[in-house]
């Protein structure tokens, strides 16, 4: 009897349904504990007043209504839009340009690629953000370098509300490495015979670029665009470090994620923070949907040819 049960137990253990759940068990547990329950809680908090010390109080749409008249909210939204809409195209153009330069076979190119990729690999580190802050100060190396080519400037780039956001944009553009590698992989997929045929037909470099390279790269451009836009909208660390955690001067570097952080963890307005997070999801969903919708107009898939 015991033997039979043991056998049944073994058979049960060996069934695909059980082993399957044993294997994905860590994910299921983690998903429930660290994603699903937090998401549901976040929805509830976004309709509540909650300071972490006393229990959350249901407050209807108050947080969302408050956002409309919150100057800093609008400021953070404009700053983020400005940042994302300038830094993403800049980064992609750089990335494509450099990828085109590196799309040839040579030992040296491999070496160059490594050097160009270096800033991106270390770019997320605090050391780089802190260094960047120093570079753009009044007596920093950027002003010294400008002085060398005859441009005198003694203003602090990070202290001036007009230029501070640009230090963040330049930092983002500087780290074009991962997009570059994706472009490079895309470029290598384009058959060389296409270019040869175009050359025989007397096409010049511009024609080859716009008629062959760009159309073939559109799926990669699409992918990079979506990924980088999401990255751009959720930028936090660089803005936090370069502005010293405040979003200053005059909130000019108060990106959305930074304002959300400050609301939740400096002012302990957890409800407002959650509401802001959901507005961010909404904004990202709209932009991603727009890119996806428009993709049928400009993204070219080779399978369509057949």
């Amino acid at each position, binding site marked *: 009897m015991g033997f039979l049960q043991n056998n049944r137990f073994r058979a049960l253990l060996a069934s695909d349904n059980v082993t*399957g759940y044993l294997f994905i068990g860590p994910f299921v547990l983690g*998903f429930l*504990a660290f*994603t699903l329950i*937090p998401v549901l809680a976040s929805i509830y908090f976004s309709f509540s007043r909650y300071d972490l010390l006393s229990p959350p109080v249901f407050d209807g749409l108050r947080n969302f209504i408050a956002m409309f008249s919150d100057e800093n909210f609008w400021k953070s939204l404009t700053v983020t839009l400005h940042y994302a809409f300038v830094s993403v195209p800049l980064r992609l153009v750089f990335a494509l340009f450099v990828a085109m330069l590196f799309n040839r076979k040579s030992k040296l190119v491999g070496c160059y690629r490594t050097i160009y990729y270096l800033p991106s690999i270390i770019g997320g580190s605090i050391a*780089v953000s802190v260094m960047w802050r120093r570079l753009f100060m009044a007596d920093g*190396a950027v002003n010294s370098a400008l002085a*060398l080519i005859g441009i005198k400037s003694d203003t602090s780039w990070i202290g001036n509300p007009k230029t501070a956001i640009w230090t963040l944009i330049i930092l983002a553009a500087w780290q074009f490495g991962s997009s570059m590698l994706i472009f490079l992989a895309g470029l290598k997929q384009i058959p060389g015979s296409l270019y040869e045929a175009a050359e025989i037909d007397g096409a010049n470099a511009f024609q080859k670029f716009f008629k062959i390279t760009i159309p073939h790269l559109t799926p990669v451009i699409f992918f990079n665009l979506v990924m980088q836009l999401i990255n751009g909208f959720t930028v936090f660390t660089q803005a936090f470090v370069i502005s010293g955690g405040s979003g200053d001067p005059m909130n000019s570097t108060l990106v959305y994620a930074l304002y959300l952080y400050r609301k939740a963890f400096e002012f302990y307005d957890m409800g407002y923070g959650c509401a802001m997070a959901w507005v961010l999801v909404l904004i990202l969903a709209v932009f991603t949907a727009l890119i996806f919708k428009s993709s049928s107009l400009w993204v070219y898939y080779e399978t369509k040819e057949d």
Partner: protein
Amino acid sequence: MRRTQRWLNLGIYHVFIILFGVLMVYPVLWMVFSSFKENTEIFGTASLIPRHFKLDAYVRGWQGVGGVPFGFFFRNSFYYVILATIGTVFSSAVVAYGFARIKFFAKNFWFVCMLLTMMLPYQVVMIPQFILFFKLGWVNSFLPLIVPMFCGQPFFVFLMIQFIRGLPVELDESAKIDGCGRFRIFSKIIFPLISPAIITTTIFQFYWRWDDFLGPLLYLNKPRLYTVSLALRMFADPATATDWGGMFAMGTLSLVPIFIIFISFQRYLVEGISTTGLKG
């Protein structure tokens, strides 16, 4: 004539790339070289080479901030990063095998859950997760940073699934005929065969965790628990006079582990990015 023209073009190409490349790495070099300069020499000059080569900044920096020696921060970082990376690699591989090779009830449902998790901005779960860990009394410990990493990271699970799907199913089947159970098939056959995906995951998770700032910022509020990234930020606190030399010295040291990984696994990194589209 055509030949000289070609050589000229090639020359222009390399000169341009090298000049632009210098511009690319200049900020990093500037920081590294500044760490060997005297404090007064760091500012107001764009030149790299220090007039007097000094190691003072390293000595000062190593003494740390807020009364905590810098060695503490390194120890904390290594502790957190290594555990989190081990957790990510093993749990992600296990979950990936489950999704890639086993048919079970509601598999597609869980797979969609995983994809949705991947697309959800961290800001949405950041606050409720913090509240959860706060209630559990885990704030000011490494638990909130490490425990979730043992639940499989969707992005890496996804990467490994792609990899496992590339392996022939016959491998599993013949092992099954030989009497191997699922767990043996996974640990003896699949896990060793997906080593490229394992290496990619290890490298990226190591350096993402090493650079992670927001997580430690939320959960570690005692200087003795600070990771290197938090400590560096404390150096640059606008409220106090900053010892830039010391900060650059420690900043340079903080890049050493990433740099070593970068140099030794450069090939995997580059391939990993171009095939999977990882952010950087």
